[in-house]
């Protein structure tokens, strides 16, 4: 099974207070930010790795190709994914400030046309733009089935057909998908038994974790030798069109951060009415 996993670097969410808006309000400045792989992408990478390995024997059985769109130093994020276990990477050089979800989907389509993966597995959204659009548009452009918000994946024929549980506001929807397909994942995909691939023993449980697997030191050394191809949208034959323009950015108003202690439920209700004005 060959899986394409698009990943994006985002400002480290743990240091989100360092995010600043440029003086003219036209962009979020990236200076001094620490970059990290978008958590949703990290989880989709974890899902893709689980689909392409024997989890018990810790051996790889398929191929995971990472792709990111961004400046040259975004390669470091790809390297992080390679050290987690992906086989190779592609860096599509672009200025990430000038992209929108539509352009991302168009570039990814060009990559899919070239790489011909069995599946595209990607995060449902990024934690910076939070658009939740690229995966859906990509499926549309490819004419592939889309299984979004996947919380569990199961296949026993190397990804040709999959049973996907989708996490929706109204409950869990279980669907069958015939590949090739686009899958977007939610955080529940990290549960110990949420991915079954017919290779890893059915009773195998992955450890409980809040994120994707951490790279082992051996993985980091191995990643140094794995290839990252550098391409451009033009070299892929893609001419992505921008459809969304950002007019202005502003930071949310600072919160007062004041804590009020109350003695009773009555007082709480009173304060919620008079001070917080939420009732």
């Amino acid at each position, binding site marked *: 099974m060959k899986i394409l996993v698009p990943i994006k670097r985002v400002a480290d969410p743990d240091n989100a207070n360092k995010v600043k808006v440029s003086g003219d309000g036209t962009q979020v400045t990236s200076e001094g930010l620490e970059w990290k792989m978008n958590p949703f992408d990290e989880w989709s990478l974890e899902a893709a790795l689980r689909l392409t390995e024997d989890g018990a024997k810790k051996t790889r059985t398929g191929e995971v190709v990472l792709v990111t769109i961004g400046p040259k130093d975004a390669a*470091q994020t790809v*390297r*992080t994914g390679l*050290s987690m276990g992906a086989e190779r990477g592609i860096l599509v050089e672009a200025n990430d400030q000038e992209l929108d979800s539509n352009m991302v989907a168009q570039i990814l389509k060009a990559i899919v046309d070239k790489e011909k993966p069995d599946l595209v597995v990607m995060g449902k959204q990024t934690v910076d733009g939070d658009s939740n659009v690229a995966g859906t548009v990509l499926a549309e452009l490819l004419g592939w089935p889309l299984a979004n918000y996947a919380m569990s994946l199961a296949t026993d024929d190397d990804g040709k057909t999959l049973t996907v549980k989708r996490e929706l506001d109204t409950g869990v929807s279980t669907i069958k998908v015939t590949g090739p397909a686009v899958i977007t994942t939610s955080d529940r995909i990290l549960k110990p038994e949420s991915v079954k691939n017919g290779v890893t023993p059915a009773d195998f449980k992955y450890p409980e*974790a*809040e*994120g994707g697997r*951490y*790279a*082992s*030191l*051996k*993985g*980091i*050394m191995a*990643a*140094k030798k794995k290839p990252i191809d550098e391409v451009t949208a033009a070299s892929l034959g893609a001419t992505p069109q921008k459809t969304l323009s950002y007019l202005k950015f502003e930071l949310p108003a600072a919160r007062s951060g004041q804590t009020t202690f109350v003695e009773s439920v009555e007082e709480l209700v009173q304060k919620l009415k008079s001070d917080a004005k939420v009732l």
Partner: protein
Amino acid sequence: MSHSETDKSVSFMRSLCMGQIEEDVLLPFPEMSEDEKETLRGVAEALGSMLGAHTEDFRHWDREGHFPESFIEELKEFGAFGLVIPEEHGGLGFGSMAYSRALQEVAKYDASTAVTIGAHSSIGMRGLLLFGNEKQNARFYPKLATGEMIAAFCLTEPGAGSDAASITTKATREGDEWVLDGNKLWITNGGIASFFTVFAKTDEGRKGGMTAFLVTSDMEGVSVGPHEDKMGLRASSTTTVAFDSVRVPAANVLGEVGQGFKVAMKILNSGRTGLGGGSVGAMKKIIELATAQASERKQFGKPIAEYGLVRRKIGHMVVDCYAAEAVVSVVAGLVDEGFEDYAVEAAISKVYATEALWRTVDEGLQIAGGNGFMCEFPYERMLRDCRINRIFEGTNDILRLFIALNGMDGVASQLKELVSVRKSIFSAPIKGFGVLQDYAAKHAQLATGARVKGTHFTKLAPELGKHAEAFEQATRELASAVDRILRKHGKDIIGKQFASNRLAEIMIDLFVWASVMARVNAAIEAKASDVETQLRILEVFAGRAGSRIRANFRKIDDNDDEHIKALSDHAFEHGKFGWDTL
């Protein structure tokens, strides 16, 4: 880095004691390549993910006093035991600089973990790395790299601590085997190790006639005692290890028969950057904790971070941490560049980094106030954990004598007339100094001869001019101090520990000062945006080191040593403090 043209047998400090500034040994400040940095960033991130998830566990494991097996397994799987083993044998092939930096990261999370990894890589299997033959390497490297075998270093015995040459474990040759008998004490990793580097007497007639052996736990007669209950590093395994008629194949002799003492010393020297890195990591962690604590904690209406006495503490922590990282890095660079004689420099880095960490944790705890004393916060554990650093791998007291005596030995070696004599000094440093009685007469030659060339810095950035000058001045004082100490005590210097200690203090200050200068110089050359801040660090360090050096120099002749000795005698005589208000 390019030290390719430099004479690799030169020691910066031994030369400095003769008034010679070997700037090509010191400069440029070692820096990792971009590729290495990227790898280390990945390593730091991975360690953060793995260890960060155990933050609460570490507190419990400290309480319980041991690591669960599952955590040791996790470390193995992660590759933590393969840091310094060559890549072709399944390890990561880290040099000293990268290894030290990686241990820094581990120490930020947990000292017990750092020492478990460190005792394996810094000393347990370091002998194999330095002296192992091809067969031994092929046999053991792959298993040591995966952690299938964890290593321990077995030198200390109940009756042989600092005086390592007095061990009584003995090995007797019987055909193709050696029969090993004896007991080792306080062996880090003892309970989880299956690979032991063991030192035993192989020549009973001669003091120090010892040999190093590679012993594995599957050999009959190897047994391990219970887990010791310790003040700090409680989760790490410390046990006795006993060898009862253990038959060790001759193929397991490490290095040459009879060279065991040298093997042990080389292992300890080479592994020092691990402990240094660990100390720096813990200091960085404390600075993070203390600045956060001081920003949050409000008293008298404002955060305590705004008060002068808190800022004073934090400022000193920054200087100490920068200096410790500088000196550990310089030593790691010397090891990686293939310098042969860095024992004095490595000893200085160990003494400085471990004491700087102690000061930093102590002051960090003070800033945290009552919270610092509570087990709910990490300060008290860090304080307990780092106390042993000044004791193990050579106590800082013994290392001070080592630093001073080696500094003086270097001076003697420069005097051709004393060459034959010098050898006996070095092989028996504690007794050999008697031969220096006519040293004073020879010193005039040194004073005129050695100072012509190489007594000034020529490669430092012009911004450092005044610091270079002050250092050169202090160097002259050092050379003169060595002279005056030897003049004053002559053949008795070996018993004059007060005087040796004073010289060691001067040498420690000078080498750390030089390392800080080298680091700031690199920042100037790289046009770092925060050069001004780094210059402030140099300003503080140089100012304080300068006055300490001058004070120690004065005390060579004008001191209270005799009073102190008399008071000590008084206490020994009574076996207690001699006064009471009753």
